[in-house]
Structures are given as structure tokens and as C-alpha cells.
């Protein structure tokens, strides 16, 4: 089209239609952006393919027994990841309970005009900084600060309440509780940021209506704001859970890397990610394939949880867009 126009334009004019070079450049550039977009999709598929492909021989060889097996012995070629799956889920659930409580409380505290906007911003930045600290630094801090700090209390609880399964062992060093505590600090920023967004997107008039009916601040929060943003808060928890499942370094350093299934908060345990981090660098050919299988299981679990979280968040924003405005 540009070429047919050319005849009508006076040659001394400042304005000119795009030259054929411009048009070609435009097409190329657009094509490139399109290509890179597609490459994102291919990248995800390639990651799935690569991990699944490398795991395939081990999947064939060990089958379902790998998931239910409880021993890990590279010398005898016996592999099972049930304790790791248990440890992954258990640590993530504990971290979610602690981190969820703190995260949602903070989200409420920082959105409901308890503080002046300036102070709110200060706390918001502090919580965001928690997310900026690298996980390996949290691991180091956990080893030299958290474990010594909680050990006396933990052992006192074990001595006096040892009959409760949660406290049936003593804390001798690394263990489930310090790992879960540090993990909860790491998921807290995610949970608080996402649920803060959910809570602050509740329309003001709903809250004002509650106040108009004579509700106290907390009656409005519990009766109106939390129910309205419940889907979003739930989505925040699921996303935090997904983050906790995949977190590696803090757990590899704090959980104790012991292949056992225990309810006790003080006993060492292991997680899938920590197993990969600790065994992969020194793995032989056979163990490597088996670790790929473990990676595949971890990927399946986290993908499932993240898909669920994304779906919930989408639903939350759809529902709220119905309420708002």
C-alpha cells in the first residue's frame, strides 16, 4: 500500500510514507517479538520434556515402588523417596501455618488504616526486604542463630510433653522445626503481598456500609472484608505453599537430611529439593537417573499447586471485578 501512495506525494514534502525498508523492518521486528513469545512456551515444554525424558529410564526401572519406598542406598541400588515426599509436604504445611498466620495478619494490619500511610510504607518495605535476602543466607542464619536459640525450649518441651507425637524426639541440631520456621519467613512476603492486594481491592463502600451499620473495625474486617477477599487470600496461601514446596537451600542446610518419616517437629528429616541439592553433585550414573525421577515428582507437585493457585487467583479477580464499581 505504501508503494502505491508514493506517486501522490510531492517529492519536496517533509512527510513521506514509510519506505519499503521501514516496512520490512517493521515486519521483521514484529515477527521477532512473536517468535520470542512462542519461545517462552517452547522453553516450558522443553524443560518438561528434558526432565521427564531423563527421568524416563528410572521411572521404567523403579515404577511406583520409588514413591512408596523408604530406603535410599546408592551402593545397593535401592531407592525410595517416600520420606522425602513426606518431608516436603510436612515442612511446607508447617511453614504455611506459621507464615500464613503472620502474612495474613500483616496484610490486614497494613491495609486497614491502623497506621499512617508513611509508617505503612515502612513496614511494607521491611516485609519486602525479607524476600530480598538470599535463601542461602537464611540457611546460614538458621544454623548459627535459630537452632541454638530454640534448642533449649525444644528440649524442655520434649522432656515434659514427650508423649505427644509432635515432640517425641529431642532437637539435637538440624531438624524439622528450625527448617519450617526459616521456611515460613521465606514464604511470608509472598503471602502478605498477594493477600494485601486481595484485601485492598475490596471496594471501600462495602467497608463503609459495615461501619454505617455500627460495626466495629474488627467486625467489619471479619464479617465483610475477609469473606469478600477470601478467594484471593486462599490463592495467596496456595502460592505460598507452592513456594515452600520448591524452596531448596534453607532446607538443605537446616532439615538434617535424614531419611525418615516422623511426626516429630524436632527430628531431622529430608525434602525432595534438599535431596537433589545434596546428592546431585556427587551422584553416579545410576543415582543421577533416579534423582531425575525425584526431580520429576517435585516438578509434578509444584506445577499442580501453582496451577491451582493461579486458577484461584484468576477466579478471585473475576469475582471482585463483579463486586467492584
Amino acid at each position, binding site marked *: 500500500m505504501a508503494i502505491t501512495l508514493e506517486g501522490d506525494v510531492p517529492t519536496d514534502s517533509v512527510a513521506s510514507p514509510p519506505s519499503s525498508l521501514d516496512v520490512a523492518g517493521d515486519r521483521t521486528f514484529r515477527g521477532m517479538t512473536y517468535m520470542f513469545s512462542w519461545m517462552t512456551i517452547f522453553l516450558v515444554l522443553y524443560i518438561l520434556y528434558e526432565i521427564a525424558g531423563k527421568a524416563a529410564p528410572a521411572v521404567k526401572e523403579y515404577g511406583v515402588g520409588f514413591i512408596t519406598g523408604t530406603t535410599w542406598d546408592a551402593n545397593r541400588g535401592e531407592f525410595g523417596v517416600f520420606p522425602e515426599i513426606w518431608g516436603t509436604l510436612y515442612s511446607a504445611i508447617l511453614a504455611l501455618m506459621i507464615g500464613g498466620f503472620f502474612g495474613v495478619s500483616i496484610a490486614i494490619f497494613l491495609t486497614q488504616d491502623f497506621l499512617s500511610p508513611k509508617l505503612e510504607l515502612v513496614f511494607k518495605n521491611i516485609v519486602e526486604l525479607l524476600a530480598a535476602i538470599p535463601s542461602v543466607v537464611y540457611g*546460614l542464619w538458621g544454623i548459627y542463630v535459630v537452632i541454638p536459640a530454640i534448642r533449649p525450649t525444644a528440649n524442655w518441651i520434649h522432656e515434659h510433653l514427650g508423649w505427644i507425637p509432635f515432640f517425641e524426639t529431642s532437637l539435637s541440631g538440624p531438624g524439622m522445626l528450625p527448617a519450617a520456621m526459616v521456611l515460613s519467613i521465606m514464604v511470608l512476603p509472598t503471602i502478605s503481598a498477594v493477600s494485601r492486594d486481595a484485601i485492598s481491592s475490596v471496594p471501600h463502600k462495602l467497608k463503609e456500609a459495615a461501619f454505617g451499620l455500627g460495626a466495629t473495625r474488627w467486625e467489619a474486617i471479619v464479617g465483610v472484608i475477609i469473606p469478600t477477599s477470601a478467594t484471593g487470600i486462599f490463592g495467596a496461601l496456595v502460592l505460598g505453599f507452592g513456594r515452600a514446596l520448591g524452596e531448596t537451600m534453607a532446607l538443605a542446610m537446616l532439615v538434617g537430611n535424614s531419611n525418615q518419616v516422623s511426626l516429630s517437629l524436632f527430628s531431622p528429616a529430608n525434602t525432595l529439593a534438599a535431596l537433589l541439592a545434596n546428592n546431585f553433585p556427587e551422584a553416579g550414573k545410576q543415582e543421577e537417573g533416579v534423582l531425575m525421577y525425584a526431580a520429576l515428582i517435585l516438578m509434578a507437585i509444584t506445577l499442580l499447586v501453582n496451577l491451582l493457585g493461579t486458577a484461584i487467583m484468576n477466579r478471585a479477580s473475576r469475582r471482585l471485578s463483579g463486586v467492584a464499581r
Partner: protein
Amino acid sequence: MNDEIEISESFADVDFPRLERSLRHPRTLLSAFLSLMTGVVTVVACIPLFSVLFMLIYRGGKRLSLSLLTETPPSAFESGGGFGNAIVGTLTMVGIAALIAVPFGILAAVFLAEFGPKSKTASAVRFCAKLLTGFPSILAGVFAYAAVVLLTGTYSAPAGGIALSILMLPIVMLTAEESIKMVPQKMKEAAIGMGATQTQVVWRVILPTAMPGMLTGVMLAVARAAGETAPLLFTALNSNYWIVQDGSLALMEPTASLAVLIFNFSGVPFESQIELAWAAALVLVLIVLVINIVGQVLSRKRVTR
């Protein structure tokens, strides 16, 4: 007289709501208690950050000296030494990762925000990017091991960089998309009205205007990548040597990084290596915080619609 008394008596029967706010009322008491509790919880949540920072300065600050930046790590019973090679290694790998992830992410973001924001491709790409945001970092390492280390037959800096780029990509892409969307519609229309092609609009108007926001995303991604350990454990491994040996760049060799050094030295029984781990942690956190702050400063210049 009688009438008046009757009226006031009948009023006494009516249960007026008490409108004044009294702290003795159970409702307000509960409300105040819950307010106090969330306040306490918020303050408690800030303790770990200050504890971490305090320990870093207290234990890491002791060893802080210039020789840390110029020497290589000590062996078990040696004292002294440094981690200059690890700093160089971290910067190299983050650099490689940024070289891959930044152009990739921004080009895809241009498509997502400008050329086909409502297309099926765009929603599929956004979905994949969101999946990658939640992708465990250790699996990025497993992938890079399978795709690069097994292929090239050696642990190397590019393998580590590729693993890190997978973690950077979604951050760069999604923040760039957001900031491109923030560019005012009228600016684009003005450029199109002057006869610019869409590519010219992107290069001359959209990208310059959206630059501060995109840089913030890049900074966030770089800060995250610099602190990552898990993807490097079995892609770059570790090394006690400089990446530049005898004047030649040893890219296809195992490469040291601050994060892996901290991990390796955290569990050893040797005091001097533990001290070094704390000092490395301090340096790493400083690097990450500085990059984050630069990103924050840039984001203040961001255009808002």
C-alpha cells in the same frame, strides 16, 4: 405532671443503643485486642530481618577487608584467604543470565503488551511466564544440568548462567509488560499519527518511556539471580580458582560463586571457613540490596497513567 412522668418512664423501657465508644464494652475491647495483636505480629515478623542483618554485620563484618576481594578461598586449616574469585564468578554468571533473559523477556513483553495483547498466543505466553515464576529454582538447575552440562560434558559458567536466566526471564517479561502498558495511549497515537510504523513507535516512544519500569524489573531479576544457590550447585559447581587463568578466560570450567561458597562453608567444622562464609554472606546481601535499591529508585521515575 402525671403525663410527663409516664412519658419518661415509657422511654426508660426502650433500649437505646449506646453510641459512645467505651473500652469496657466487650465489642470494642475485642476490637482493640485484635488491633494490638496484629500490630505485635507485624513487629515480630520484622525481627528476623534485623536479626539477619545484625548477625551479618557482627560476624561477617569482623573479616571484612580488601584481601577478601583479591584472594582465593583457604583450604581447611588455612586462615585468611578471600573469595574474590567467587565474586567474579557470580558477576559473570549473572551477566550471562542477563544477556539471555533481558532481550528475550523484553521482546516477548513488547508482543504481550503491544502487538497482540488479547491474542491466544499472548494468554498462553503469560500463563507460561506465571508458571515459570513459581518454578522451583533447583529444577532450573536440574534442567540446565540435563540440557547443557550433559551436552557439553563439563560444569561451566554458561550452564550456571542458563539456569539463572530461566529464573530471571518471567520477572523481566512480566514487569516489562506492565510498564509498557503504562505508556499513555495518546503518546502512541501521536507517533502513529505522524506516520511512524509500529516498530518505530516501539523503539522511539514506547521503550524509552517504559525504560525506568523495565529497568526496575531487570534489577529485581538480577538481584534474585545473584542470590540463587540451588541452580548453580550442579551446573557451575564450585572452584578455588579465578575464572581468568594465565590471561585466558576459563569459561568452560567449574566456576565459583558467592552463594555456593556460603553453602559449602556453612557446614564445615573449620572456624576460618565459617567466618569466611559469614563475610561472603555480608557481601552477597550488600550486592543484592544495592541492586534492589537502584531498582526502587528507578521505579520512582516510572510513568503512571
